């Protein structure tokens, strides 16, 4: 191995694990040109990658965010409202519709009670529907928040608001804000990874985009089939040895150029090529779940070399084990405007076992304490039935989008386990206590990671932007 590379690797490994705040470029440069330049390089764009100190002591070091694209029905999963049964099929109260806007509901819709049974689970007595039997088994590990609310009631804007704090395109996702704030803990993998089961969400790759932050902070999608990361594999007939020879040549020329012109960006470039080379080994190793024990595979319901939510949950654990800070899972097809009675149970079967397994597995490995797990959709669903498709055709009932109240759950990473936080009114339409806006959720997530959402700012186009825009407050009641 080339002496510079050895040095780079040793130094960067060590440095990344401490909170030095010094980027790769600075280190490479100091080794090449002497210590005097180190300080200057720190000021440059070069120092983007390494770990940076949080604002205060964090409770969570990483986040696994399970986003159910389309918005699951809280009323059939968590927010049990027996009062709905009494008026099932009757016209909803006038105040549910007066002056309100809905995506699909028109006229005077009727109330729809849940068709599913609820039971209390665990010491905490959390109410969970029969559709999530495995999750019910870990009820004492999770905090169910029944008082989420948001401002947007269409998918793409609501997904963007939840992820970026703004309902239109262009701003960085929460994951990008976190890596911008805290940097990376792994020198061989990106700090922010997105995994997908089913079609791409409506807002597209913008959900893990770095927006106006440098693209080093963008989420990198790891894929279940084909190349796990776009452009990861060497071209055909180009062996690792061939690649090493090319890289060594590139590095020699880049070093000569660095010595000649002195631009610290060249040192960064050299180190990024080495990181790319290491990623080519690290990523396939990570994605190969076949070496997991049969018990683990069974726990999740994962099957090697298949793209599924279960596999993604297992991959999420493998990623956080390796120091990846943000793992975002997207599972599609939760938008049940009709046929909710059959479609919701089918989707629950897709995710229930695996998400419960993720919690158990993190716990048994001692990772749950400092890994925050978040589950939920971009908004909730109405207590009223939707019986058409919006095209003028009738359909079996489902529920429309609902922004006033919905449920998410959190676990680990400094969240109080075994609690239910917040509540909706008798018919599950409005919030009754402890409202949690999606901005508050984001503020709380950053807080658990040791970041003050009001101090994590980035100056762009004349404004100091934040993930929480000009809103958000930390939900103290959720903190352990």
């Amino acid at each position, binding site marked *: 191995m080339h002496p510079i590379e050895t040095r780079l690797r040793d130094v960067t490994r060590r440095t990344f694990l401490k909170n030095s705040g010094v980027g790769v470029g600075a280190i490479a440069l100091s080794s090449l040109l002497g210590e005097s330049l180190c300080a200057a390089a720190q000021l440059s764009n070069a120092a983007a990658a390494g770990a940076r100190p949080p604002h205060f002591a964090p409770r969570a070091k990483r986040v696994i965010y399970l986003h159910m694209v389309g918005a699951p029905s809280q009323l059939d999963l968590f927010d049990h409202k027996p009062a709905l049964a009494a008026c099932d099929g009757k016209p909803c109260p006038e105040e549910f519709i007066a002056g309100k806007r809905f995506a699909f509901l028109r006229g005077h819709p009727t109330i729809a009670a849940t068709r599913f049974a609820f039971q209390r689970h665990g010491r905490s007595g959390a109410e969970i529907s029969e559709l999530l039997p495995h999750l019910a088994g870990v009820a004492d590990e999770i905090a169910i928040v029944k008082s989420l609310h948001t401002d947007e009631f269409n998918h793409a804007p609501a997904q963007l608001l939840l992820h970026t704090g703004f309902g239109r395109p262009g701003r960085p996702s929460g994951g990008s804000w976190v890596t911008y704030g805290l940097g990376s803990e792994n020198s061989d993998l990106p700090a922010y990874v997105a995994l997908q089961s089913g079609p*791409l969400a409506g807002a597209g790759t913008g959900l893990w985009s770095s927006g106006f932050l440098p693209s080093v902070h963008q989420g990198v999608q790891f894929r279940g089939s084909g190349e796990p990361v776009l452009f990861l594999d060497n071209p055909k007939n180009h062996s690792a040895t061939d690649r090493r020879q090319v890289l060594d040549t590139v590095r020699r020329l880049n070093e000569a150029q660095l010595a000649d012109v002195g631009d610290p960006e060249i040192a960064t470039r050299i180190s990024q090529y080495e990181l790319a080379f290491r990623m080519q080994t690290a990523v396939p190793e990570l994605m190969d779940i076949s070496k997991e024990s049969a018990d683990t595979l069974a726990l999740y319901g994962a099957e090697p070399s298949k793209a599924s939510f279960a596999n993604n949950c297992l991959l999420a654990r493998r990623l956080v084990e390796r120091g990846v800070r943000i793992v975002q899972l997207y599972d599609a097809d939760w938008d049940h405007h009709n046929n909710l009675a059959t479609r919701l149970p089918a989707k629950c079967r897709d995710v229930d076992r695996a998400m419960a397994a993720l919690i158990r597995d993190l716990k048994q490995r001692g990772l749950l304490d400092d890994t925050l797990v978040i589950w939920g959709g971009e908004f909730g669903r109405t207590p009223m039935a939707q019986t058409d498709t919006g095209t003028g055709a009738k359909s079996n009932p489902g529920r429309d989008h609902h922004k006033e109240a919905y449920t998410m759950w959190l676990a680990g990473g400094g969240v109080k386990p075994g609690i239910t936080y917040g509540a909706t009114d008798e018919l599950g339409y409005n919030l009754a206590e402890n409202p949690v806006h999606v901005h508050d959720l984001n503020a709380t997530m950053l807080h658990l990671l040791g970041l003050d959402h009001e101090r994590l700012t980035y100056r762009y186009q004349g404004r100091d932007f934040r993930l929480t825009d000009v809103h958000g407050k930390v939900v103290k009641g959720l903190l352990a």
Partner: protein
Amino acid sequence: MRLLVSCLGLILLPPAVAGSEPPVDFARDIRPILASRCYDCHGPEKPKGGLQLISLQSALRGGESGTPALVAGASARSELIARITATDEEDIMPQKGERLKPAEITLLRRWIDEGAVWPENQKHWAYVKPTRPPVPIIENPNSEIENPIDAFVFARLVQEKLLPSPAADKARWLRRVSLDLIGLPPSPAEVAAFLDDTSTEAHARVVDRLLASPHYGERWARPWLDLARYADSHGFQRDDLRESWPYRDWVVRAMNADLPFDQFTIMQIAGDLLPGADAQTNPDPLIATGFHRAAPTNVEAGADQEEGRVNQVIDRVNTTATVWLGSTLECAQCHNHKYDPFSQRDYYRLFAYFNQTERETAFASAKATATLAFTGPFVSLPDTANDPKRAATNARLKTIDDEIAAASARVADALPAWERSARAALATAPQSHVLKIASFESSGDSGHRVLPDQSVLLTDDVPDRDTYTITARTTLTGITGFKLEALNDASLPGNGPGRGEAARPNFVLNSFRVTAASAGGEARPVKFVRATASFSQATFPAANLVAPAGGKGWAISPQFGRDHWANFELAAPLGSPEGTTLVFTLVQNLGSGRTIGRLRLSALTGSIGEAAVPADVAQVLPIPVAQRTTAQTALLHAHLIAHDPAIVALKQSRAKVVQELAELTGPRTLVMREVAQPRMTAVLKRGNFLDPGEPVQPGTPEILHAMPATATPNRLDLGRWLADRENPLVARVTVNRWWQEFFGQGLVRTPEDFGVKGEAPTHPELLDWLAVEFVEHGWSMKHIHRLIALSAAYRQSSRVTPELLARDDSNRLLARGPRFRLEAEAIRDNALAIAGLLSPKLGGPPVRPYQPPGLWDSKVGGDRVTYEVSTGEDAHRRGLYTVWKRASPYPSFMNFDANNRGACTVRRSRSNTPLQALTLLNDPVYVEAAAALAQRLARERPDAGVAERVRFGFQLCVARTPNAVESAALEELFAQQRAAHRDDAVAWQAVATALLNLDETITKN
């Protein structure tokens, strides 16, 4: 560091004083700190603790505590200083955001110690119209002064006691200026010609050649299209493709023609309102309004259309302010601006100009209550180039129609003979009875319509997967089977029968299950023994649907665009005169919308063969010819025509020609169009469109230059006002963005914010000089570019010593030339040019260069479009022409800091990541480029040795010749690879890969 010594030049004109530090200037040094770090809480609006830092008086008054914020002349006794240097978390200011930097604290201390001079009513520099400053005269300059730019830059260096860098060597300068002016590297011949040209005009000749190149507009359109957030799709969930590329091409043409910037502005803001604008005779002013039609449109089902429209108007106001005023107005959407002199009322007065254009969405059909269609106004452009082709295609269409008519007439003649045989066969032939649809359900939320022929047509968004549940009731008895028809329809992509995409309208039916319930009885699954079909795809036979194991289902590729059927034969007949309820379940879960777009179900009676006679035909046949009604005769004719192989073939050809004709329509482009009935505009309280407040009339911010009064102010007045010579901002903002393109950073380093919170210019006099020069030189972009490109400041070497790097790491003082990574599109353009692959073709519809398969296939909502890789030269067009799909942008560009064009972008970030290395090493686009470069070396240097070819390749990539170390490294790589693979081509490709991956190759040096 090159420190100035005594023999060096003296400046005779301002900036006058060198020596001791100049006094702190409130406007330049202090107000920006107060505005950006304090005004969130202590500005003009709702001050925290009652403290306002907006005037000396307010600062001396202090807050509720009564302590003055400062004591003039005594920083040590000033509360302000105590708080910004406090160590206690409770006391330290600012409470929000980052701590103040030591340099900022020092400035504040010095300002207070110097007496806290705080001029009242001093307009922020950027709101005062620039005047031409005198050009400094430097005696005994240390570098050539090529033009006034250099005088300003070098005067500042004298002041800073720094020397300019020597000129870059000629090859490096030529590459730099070529990349800057046309975005492409110089060819070896151009390098040689320039190196040979020793005249004093050599540089000017190069610059003039580049400014005249048609590629100049392509290169400079790129940053403008970032401002315009130009893309080829709507954005949001229903991210369908839209056609507006003529706007992109207009930008290129306007820049090539050096269209004066004032006209360039007016046409984009309000070309539709200019006299004489006409889609056929004078389309450019209309096309130019595509600038603001590029705002994303939310067409998601259930979206609030008025909210979507208001959001677009907001986008237009904010973008206009950013692009032409360098001002961030969006704060004033909800409240008066905290730092800059813009009120909420100002905001909505600007809003009023843009509030008058048509909405871009409508309900998708007359019945729809939530599903939307994109209906934004467009114009069709002249397309004379295609006139001959259109005439020829129309002629072909007529020939086919004639043939169909003739064949149909022949069929009528053949009717009696056919009838005889059909009647004979009828005794045993099966009959089909179309089932009347009682209900239809799509699990994927598709819309549908039941057509008069009882077929079901699926409409609206295509779900990834779908299961149809169809209920029908019949009183037929002796049902021996069912027929499923998958039919064509003009509303389906490629005519269907699948819904996925026009290029491959396949479907995959995974299972076909039926239950039957007699009146009052239970529904029981029916058993099938056999399935046959009009056609089955090789590994997807219809028989799969009745096989116990199931298999993959039934599909029909490649026989798209025609009707198909499958017959399912029952194990036992069913049906009763009391009625039977049939429920059909059609599961289609392959994904990517491979679902049936129009289907019909029939019950079959009699013994099932492959040519069932429809029941209505069977009823007519026994009737003697003379007793038949006209309708009955027509029914027989129609049946015969529909099943005549020759006519079926002709109709398929006809459909293709119709498709060709449809594709021959001239290009369309999105335009602004005013509504007939003007809308009222009101201040929206807290920016909420549902909460209008005080009504406002169109108008411009009071702090800026006045607008001449007109009776009915409209967008055209606004456009003229923006491009007015009195506008203090527009010229400064514009030349500053260009400076940023050449030098990597603007003279104002916050090019999107010239307000009090923005950075002060590094060279204020130079900025004003350039702004005035720009306006007085007819708003000529090329004139300013020529000045910059020919300046000695720009010609400097980019080498940096550790000392200079420590002193000025980001080159604020311009003591060296620019050096930074190329932008995303330029990296690819450059590699393709080096490889000899780049197509020089200008303009036209977006192209689809290679990207990994599948990225567009799977998406919630919207049309499904498979990314078909462009062929021929379109595979190698400039990045400008790559299709920009907002929800799924071209991945290799995104890895290099391009943006998804969801919002106006003034500055792209410039990051340095491992994904960039992987892209250049492994993306098939770059692998192909490396292979082509290797071939080019062999082709253009056939007889050369390794050293000569390496030198040639190196020159192609970075224009200069390699030094000994560089040559040796590359030659060694060749030798290693040659030894390992015993194949010259492989070894050269490795060398080419290394060359294309050099930092210098992807950097403007």
